[in-house]
């Protein structure tokens, strides 16, 4: 069949083809070495995803241990020191070793494919960012054998100073922040350069897939926020070991400096974690609603606005600190403002489903779970933004519930949607849908059982980060419910792990475009060849694959379901 995507506009140039003369050809590395030496964005992407998922499981195990300890009042299962180490490891792992690099993993694999590029702009730097991440994780978990950090993922001074945390755990934490930060920074520059320079012909900024938009903004946020935390932890390091007093109140320093620097990074970090999740939802929803995304420009613009405002609200984590009222008011109103672009996104997603023909695939279910759960996290965020109310809720289980709704219900559900949506592209095989749906249902129920009741714990006066609580009021019941929920949630995650392990070898063969997707990654084979694309179509809309299918249908008289087989003369050379 003659699938004409574009009339040949570019005539081959008449210049002589440069000759490459090779003296010797090294054999392609195989097996283990091929992974260690690879600079292929797809292999690096897979390594990112597998590694970070392993860290996710470790962080999850830490969470389960904490929930076991809190399952009954005055429990003595875990010692206070171990408990503090557990929540420090859990938070740090989830933020620095799971969500942020997992998004980098998706970005690595799919940004070049979605924009029709051969690879990332700097393939060797790309490999470096992966290996720095792994090094960061190993250094951090190495501290388990010497003395784990116990100051929480926020490592507030003076608790993290050498006087109150004498062991090397905090130093391991500082090292992790530096290594993973460098990894993310290099990765972010790489993403930026790739997206800015390597888009397919015809793919202007207005035709950039929304996931790529979010990765672009994610990169910019990383570039702006990471140097600040790098500076902050360096000051902490010199305070701890080289006699400086930046954070030491007895010598004219101030613990407030740490908090400001930390949250100047820490709040954008929240959007760094959740924006790519927004991107995944914005890709998956229109595919399974069989309807274009509603308000492409509004969604892309709100991503940028959220990122901008996200840089201006850091002190809403510090409403109970000694700060003047005008500061509190500024950061309250700033936090309110963020709700507007976030609300716009949610409305646009619902409008994308509206009058569509919604196919209940697992990926779509995770997206819907994401929207519903994230909305609740956003609403409790408004409670926390009102600073007089924050005075009651701050540092309680209400906050724990809030940010798990945002990050677990938000980013993690987005990640799972991405796993179910893109697994066929990565492996060439489908994940089991029934198992996937079971996993979704268990995760959704488990999640809400675990975290909804935590709002009530906080309202009843239970602070976070306590290793035990007395048997007063209904705290024992609330905590028991939460502990049961956490194991349901874990079971749901386990089902997806089983699903992945089973389907890698035995899943149904997917073919290049099992979902009838919209974006260019579905144009190539599954899994894609090393060079990604032999030829590329000229991009004419946000949904190039839909255009191609339509054209095929028009020319073959079919209904557009045939696989795309473009002929060479009909396409622009990639």
């Amino acid at each position, binding site marked *: 069949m003659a699938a004409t995507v574009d009339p040949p506009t570019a005539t081959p140039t008449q210049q002589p083809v440069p000759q490459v003369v090779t003296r010797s050809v090294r054999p392609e590395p195989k097996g283990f070495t091929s992974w260690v030496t690879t600079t292929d964005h797809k292999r690096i992407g897979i390594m990112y995803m597998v590694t970070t998922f392993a860290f996710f499981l470790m962080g999850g195990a830490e969470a389960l241990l904490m929930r076991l300890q809190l399952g009954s009042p005055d429990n003595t299962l875990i010692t*206070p020191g171990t408990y*503090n180490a557990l929540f420090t490891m859990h938070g740090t792992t989830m933020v620095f070793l799971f969500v942020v690099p997992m998004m980098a993993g998706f970005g690595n694999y799919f940004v070049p494919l979605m924009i029709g590029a051969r690879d990332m702009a700097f393939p060797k730097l790309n490999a470096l960012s992966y290996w720095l991440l792994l090094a960061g994780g190993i250094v951090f978990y190495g501290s388990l054998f010497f003395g784990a950090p116990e*100051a929480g993922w926020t490592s*507030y001074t*003076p*608790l993290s100073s050498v006087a*109150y945390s004498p062991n090397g755990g905090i130093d391991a934490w500082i090292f992790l922040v530096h290594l993973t930060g460098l990894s993310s920074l290099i990765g972010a520059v790489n993403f930026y350069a790739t997206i800015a320079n390597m888009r397919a012909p015809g793919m202007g900024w207005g035709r950039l897939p929304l996931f790529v938009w979010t990765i672009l903004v994610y990169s910019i946020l990383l570039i702006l926020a990471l140097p600040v935390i790098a500076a902050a932890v360096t000051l902490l390091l010199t305070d701890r070991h080289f006699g400086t007093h930046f954070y030491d*109140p*007895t010598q004219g320093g101030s*613990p*407030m400096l740490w908090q400001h620097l930390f949250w100047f990074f820490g709040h954008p970090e929240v959007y760094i974690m959740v924006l790519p999740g927004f991107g995944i939802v914005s890709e998956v929803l229109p595919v399974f*609603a*069989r309807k*274009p995304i*509603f308000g*492409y420009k*509004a969604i892309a613009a709100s991503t940028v606005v959220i990122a901008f405002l996200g840089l201006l609200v850091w002190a809403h984590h510090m409403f*109970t*600190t*000694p700060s003047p*009222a005008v500061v509190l008011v500024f950061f309250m109103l700033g936090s*309110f*403002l963020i*709700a*507007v672009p976030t609300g*716009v996104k949610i*409305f646009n997603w*619902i*409008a994308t*489903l*509206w*009058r*569509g*023909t*919604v*196919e*209940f695939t697992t990926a779509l279910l995770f997206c819907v779970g994401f929207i*519903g759960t994230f*909305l609740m996290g956003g*609403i409790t965020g*408004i*409670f926390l933004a*009102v600073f*007089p*109310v924050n*005075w*009651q*809720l*701050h*540092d309680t289980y209400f906050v724990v519930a809030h940010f798990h709704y945002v990050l677990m219900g938000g980013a993690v559900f987005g990640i799972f949607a991405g796993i179910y949506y893109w697994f066929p592209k990565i492996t060439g095989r489908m994940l089991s849908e029934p198992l996937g749906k079971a996993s979704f249902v268990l995760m959704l129920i488990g999640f809400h059982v675990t975290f909804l009741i935590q709002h*009530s714990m906080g*309202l*009843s*006066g239970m*602070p976070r*980060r*306590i290793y*035990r*609580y007395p048997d007063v009021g*209904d705290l024992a019941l609330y905590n028991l419910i939460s502990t049961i929920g956490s194991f349901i949630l874990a079971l749901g995650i386990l089902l997806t792990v089983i699903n992945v392990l089973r389907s890698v070898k035995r899943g149904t063969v997917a073919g290049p475009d099992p979902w009838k997707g919209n974006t260019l990654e579905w144009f190539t084979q599954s899994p894609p060849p090393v060079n990604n694309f032999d030829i590329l179509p000229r991009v004419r809309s946000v949904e190039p694959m839909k255009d191609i299918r339509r054209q095929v249908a028009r020319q073959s008289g079919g209904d557009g379901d045939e696989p795309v087989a473009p002929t060479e003369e009909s396409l622009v050379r990639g």
Partner: protein
Amino acid sequence: MNRIPAALRRRSVFLTTCAASLLGSLALAGPAVAGLFGPESGGSPNADRIADLYWIIFAIALVVFVVVEGALIYSLFKFKARKGAVAAQIRGNTRLEIGWTVGAAVILVALAVVTFIKLPGIRTPDNSGANGLELADGTLLAASPTKERPPNGKSLNICVNGQKYVWRFTYADDCTRNDFKAPFAYTTMVVPTDTTVTLDITAQDVIHSWWIPAMGGKMDAVPGHYTHTWMKVPGEKANTTFSGQCAELCGRNHADMVAFVRAVEPAEFEQWLDEREIDVKEANEAAAEQRKEFEGSDDSIEQSSDESTP
């Protein structure tokens, strides 16, 4: 045709019953609602006002929650893929999009207005009541700019000092001065009812956070800084002990750093304070005597005045 409305009606009856029973049980549950759905209060007017503000936000949030989740679930099932159904190829609707952007903004403006109306009552302490402790004229100290005083300037000031893992309460007006003669207590703060009590909060080692849920919001105790809050226990709550605990991670025994506030009649409070004053004085004298003895017996050992922690 007939069956669907019937089913719908049955469903709506069911939903109404659910909602009614939920609201009914909420109204009947009374104090149980605080803790399950709302913050604790009752120990001080600022806690009550924070709770009021919380419930206003809760009401608005509940409406937003029901409408948006409803729209999500409705569109999911209403537009489920069916045979012959064709998805409408809509790419956007500028008017609608501007509409909901403005709508979201209006809700937030309303929330901001409500907050600003409620704020002064929460931040600025009330005047002491008629049955409260007789207070001297406020020694209007040049305290930090964030410190709020009641309109008449009179309050009982208590210095709160967080230390691993205990709270120290010093009954003094100027917390920056280490007044060794001032009466103090650990863990349990005794306050007179119907009297405005202002707190100057700090810490001497790591950051702690002062929080008695029923008596209002928490304030961090940051070494090198002072934060402020206030409380005024209503008269009928005499002989009540309110409990709370440190709310900022301060080390391994963070969970055990508890605090209590015991409210007593002003007369009983004065008596207690006098007793404490005498105790402190006697202890200071005993310590001075011991030191003299010690110094007299061995001059070579250097002495440091460490008998009192600030």
